[in-house]
């Protein structure tokens, strides 16, 4: 609760106004929706708001932060964001493990609605993408934007509001799924009121970023910020358009999408694929462009490659969504455009991956010795692999085999585990000692353990899913000599059983790695020896020091 002490008196007042507004909104939803599931969420919102109001009031008269705060970057939100990200990682991955176990042992639902596959699967996907990934992006973006702009966050309240509001969204999402509240749009499952709330939070995030940029002392906007900006701006566009819906009433959690059928499918996968592009790629590339050169102590290999790949990714990705709809009722011209742009997308994607790996030239000895940098290196490799695989699977003929199978699941996890999670863990391990002013992580050996658990878990998972997906796809289209289908559907499903067990094992390894990471983070915060303040902690007063990539 020391976060409240960092707020000025005025900010504490603003915080109270916001919280009272939130509490009132929660009460309106709670009363209007008293005989539906919405009522529970309304009540939850009010309770969270009231508890926070009491916390603010109890510290309202504590001394205000002094003017010396302006000498330093404002890093408390980044610290909070990293802790939240690691917490969500364990929750999200645990639900993932459980979901995958259900496919091998379907009785693990205890005859309870909330524990069935369809309800816990989105808790896994939202938990890892939005809970883990989103909090890590917000935390690192605050860290990176301040340092690459050489400007402090504009105030103390808005970054904390962004984290607080964003995590309320995540909690509404996850608890809603367990109760059965969902729009069914993949990776956009939360219902209308949570979506509206996220828009408010996201606009605040965007404005905060603009305010830092406006105050920057660095004339050039560093490449990491281009990616973070693209992530914030485009995710806002995607989120608003895809979630346009008409609620049944103010007292009902249920809404109906304004789109239907083929238009809805295209809008959904325009959103879905670009959630991959701008949430899971652009944002994390922003992370990579800062933490990888910093940790390797090498400048970015090529400025021109950074420019070409950034605009290539921003432009091409938005066309690629229709490759999720090959051979469906979507007009073929849209399918062909999607396929074409997906293949072209390989060029900027590999340019980014190459730029990252070539940056390590001259620092490969560090990659060998330092598991943190190795996390980032392996992430860049998996980024290259999974973008190649993605372009490949977007080809119509390949897609006819891979679509609807576990191959897609394997592809997603090659990206999500191999790229997104590994670049995040690498960045967190780099940032934590800098943020908490420690010499290093509590245990570099445990970082090493985490690294090998992550790599082996990812490899086991992806190999299992490649095998099961391709076997599945082939069995569905195999004909026997008399010209009829050779296998019934259930036969293809029985063939998946060993791979589903292997996949669960791979997921278990990955989850164990995350738990080890949490322990290491906790011990670093509590027990690691304090290190000297590094130059990058201080706002520049005189001549600027060289930043990565310049």
């Amino acid at each position, binding site marked *: 609760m020391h976060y409240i002490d960092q707020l000025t008196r005025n900010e504490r007042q603003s915080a109270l106004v916001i919280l009272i507004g939130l509490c009132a909104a929660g009460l309106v939803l709670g009363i209007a929706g008293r005989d539906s599931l919405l009522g529970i969420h309304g009540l939850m919102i009010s309770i969270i708001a009231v508890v926070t109001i009491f916390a603010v009031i109890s510290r309202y008269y504590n001394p205000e932060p002094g003017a010396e705060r302006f000498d330093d970057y404002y890093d408390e939100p980044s610290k909070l964001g990293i802790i939240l990200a690691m917490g969500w990682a364990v929750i999200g991955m645990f639900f993932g493990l459980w979901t995958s176990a259900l496919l091998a042992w*379907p009785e693990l639902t205890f005859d309870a609605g909330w524990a069935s596959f*369809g309800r816990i699967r989105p808790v896994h996907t939202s938990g890892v993408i939005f809970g883990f990934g989103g909090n890590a992006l917000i935390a690192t973006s605050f860290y990176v934007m301040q340092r690459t702009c050489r400007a402090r966050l504009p105030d103390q309240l808005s970054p904390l509001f962004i984290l607080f509001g964003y995590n309320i969204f995540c909690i509404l999402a996850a608890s809603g799924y367990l109760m059965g509240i969902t729009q*069914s749009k993949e990776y956009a499952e939360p219902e209308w009121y949570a979506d509206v709330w996220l828009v408010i939070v996201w606009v605040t995030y965007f404005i905060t970023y*603009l305010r830092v940029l406006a105050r920057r002392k660095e004339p050039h906007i560093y490449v990491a910020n281009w990616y973070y900006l693209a992530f914030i701006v485009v995710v806002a566009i995607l989120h608003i358009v895809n979630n346009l819906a008409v609620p049944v009433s103010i007292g009902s959690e249920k809404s109906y999408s304004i789109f239907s*059928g083929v238009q809805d499918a295209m809008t959904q996968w325009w959103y879905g694929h670009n959630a991959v592009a701008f949430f899971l790629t652009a944002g994390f590339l922003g992370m990579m462009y800062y933490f990888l050169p910093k940790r390797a102590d090498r400048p970015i290999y090529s400025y*021109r490659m950074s420019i070409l790949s950034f605009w290539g990714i921003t432009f091409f990705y938005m066309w690629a969504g229709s490759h999720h709809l090959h051979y469906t009722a979507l007009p073929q011209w849209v399918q062909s*455009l999607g396929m074409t742009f997906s293949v072209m997308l390989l060029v900027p994607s590999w340019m980014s991956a190459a730029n990252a790996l070539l940056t390590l030239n001259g620092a490969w000895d560090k990659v060998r010795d330092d598991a943190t940098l190795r996390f980032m290196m392996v992430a860049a490799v998996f980024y290259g692999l999974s973008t190649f695989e993605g372009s490949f699977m977007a080809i119509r003929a390949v897609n006819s085999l891979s679509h609807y199978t576990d191959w897609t699941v394997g592809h997603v996890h090659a990206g999500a585990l191999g790229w997104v999670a590994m670049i995040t863990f690498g960045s967190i391990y780099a940032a934590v000692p800098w943020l908490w002013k420690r010499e290093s992580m509590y245990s570099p050996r445990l970082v090493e353990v985490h690294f090998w658990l992550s790599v082996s878990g990812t490899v086991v998972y992806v190999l299992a899913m490649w095998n099961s997906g391709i076997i599945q796809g082939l069995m569905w289209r195999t004909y026997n000599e008399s010209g009829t289908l050779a296998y019934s559907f259930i036969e293809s499903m029985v063939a998946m059983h060993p791979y589903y067990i292997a996949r669960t094992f791979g997921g278990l390894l990955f989850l164990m790695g995350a738990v080890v990471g949490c322990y290491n983070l906790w011990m670093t915060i509590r027990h690691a020896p304090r290190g000297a303040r590094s130059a990058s902690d201080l706002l520049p007063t005189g001549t600027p020091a060289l930043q990565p990539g310049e």
Partner: protein
Amino acid sequence: MFGIHYRLERKATWLILGIIGAASVGGIVEIAPLFTIHQTVENVPHMRVYTPLETAGRNIYIREGCYACHSQMIRTLRDEVERYGPYSLAVESKYDHPMLWGSKRTGPDLARVGEKYSDEWHVAHLTNPRHLVPESVMPSYAWLGRNKLRTDDLGAHLAALRTVGVPYTDEMIKNASADAYGQAAPDTPYAEGVTQRYGEATTVRAFDGRPNDLTEMDALVAYLQILGRLTDAAAKPVAAREDNNAQP
């Protein structure tokens, strides 16, 4: 070119406008025409809307995340047509807000599962899939048979669906709750209203086998039994469909 960028990256506003510009083109080119080119969705006469009970069932299908394992989109591939039936047409999900095409088949496609199995089969299968298919990994949904179906707000649901474009009449909205009851209670006066408003071909049966008890099981089975049967356009030869398209 890199010189221009060198100047661009000093101006936050232009950088953001550039991002919005570059990112907008793809969506505008691919999505906007789907609303204006009328061949995108086939023109089919006599396409029926979901009844209130089927709408409730569809919402249960969404709530339980059935779409995560079952697609409702048969692709234009020989093996899919032979396994599941005629390939899906755009018009068949015209009233689906949102669509449930799905993206993964842990279980089989359901686009044409309607009337493929009996109600009893569905009830037994949903109650415990492994009683009928020992190798199945589908969760059991026994509680659906225990949960009473909420019907009092179905009128509001239909009204919201009308707002987004489904042609429900005032009559349908007014009688939504009674129709939901009537569709699963064949020997009551309410049953007549259902066929009056939604057509003679509407299935009126005690889906879960207990006519006096309207449960979530009734609703879900009613929905499963209508899948692929809102129109028979997909079963007609292609030429006949194109004739329909030629009409304004």
